[in-house]
């Protein structure tokens, strides 16, 4: 049987994995669901560790990068991005 990947991306309030979720995205390689932009107002988990407890495997976390000189006060992308997977 071919295993297919489900991907969960959580954006957290700080760089700590147990900090609250502020944003979320899902991508489903099994084809059983079709998540998309603006499809829910409540996150699937309250924090990153709650996703681990539910069986999601952490596969990538944002590095901590110092701000670029001269751009210390600029805001851009969300900083604390964590990628998880499940195989099914």
């Amino acid at each position, binding site marked *: 049987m071919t295993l297919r990947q489900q991907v969960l*991306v959580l*954006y*957290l*309030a*700080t760089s700590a994995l147990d*900090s609250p*979720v*502020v*944003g*979320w*995205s*899902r991508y489903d390689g099994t084809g059983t669901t*079709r*998540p*998309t*932009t*603006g*499809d*829910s*107002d409540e*996150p699937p988990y309250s924090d990153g560790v709650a996703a681990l407890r539910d069986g999601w495997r952490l596969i990538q976390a944002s590095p901590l990068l110092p701000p670029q000189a001269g751009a210390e*006060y*600029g*805001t*851009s*992308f*969300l*900083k*604390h991005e964590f990628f998880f997977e499940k195989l099914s």
Partner: protein
Amino acid sequence: MRTSTLLTSVQLARFVAHGYLRLDAVVPEEMNQEALGLLPKGIPDVPCGTPVADAYPDGSFPRRLVELPAVAGALRSLVGPDPTVDHHAVHVREPHEGHAQPLHGDAIIDVRPDAFDVQLMYYPQRVTPDMGGTLVVPGSHLRRTNESDTGRYQNLRGQTRLVCPAGTVLLLHHGIWHGGRRNDSDVRRYMFKIRFNPAAPQVRLWDTADMADPAVAEELGRYFPWYEQATGRLEIYNRVLLWRALTGDPSFDVDHWVTRVTNRPAHRSHA
């Protein structure tokens, strides 16, 4: 009693914090019905930078739309007298189309610190939850991102999924993150958008009588649920800079954020 249709300082501060202003059901029903006849045929393009009076002749639908007192007062407060039309477009979300737009800011990255364009979005129909009303992320307009590079973000805490009565108008800062959501209904959803460029400095264009109202600073100090703990503070910092530009008051601050980090007393010689 206030008779001016200009925005108040508190409303302006709310716009600076949220990045948009919502005017519910300000367009009368007969105009909404007229729009539903016109929009499917499209509104002819106008060259970028055309003054409103030239872009939209007297009596035309877009001219009557922007001259509705509530709309005209808000536009005057935000982009001043005689703005030009950057462009306009009729947006359609087809029934059961199966996908949403990626979260994006329109045009290209635009980080002007002391000027902004305003996009008017007009909804001639009642928008129900399943019609894919525009997703808007409050407080996202000062983020330095380019167009759909934010497409990876599907949902952010505190996002607004537009549900509104017919005749609702949104006025948005050019940088706001937004997107047309998936329309899961049986109804074609229309939205008419006009982007305005200011033609005058955007300084104290609104009704400033309430400038000292404490609610101004409360609005400018507002956090949104999707903000990260640390970056949320920088949002306040950047709003203070914009408010200083819009008011011409270089001393304004919220919680000492900007004053503190720009305090550099001159070094004195002890020789």
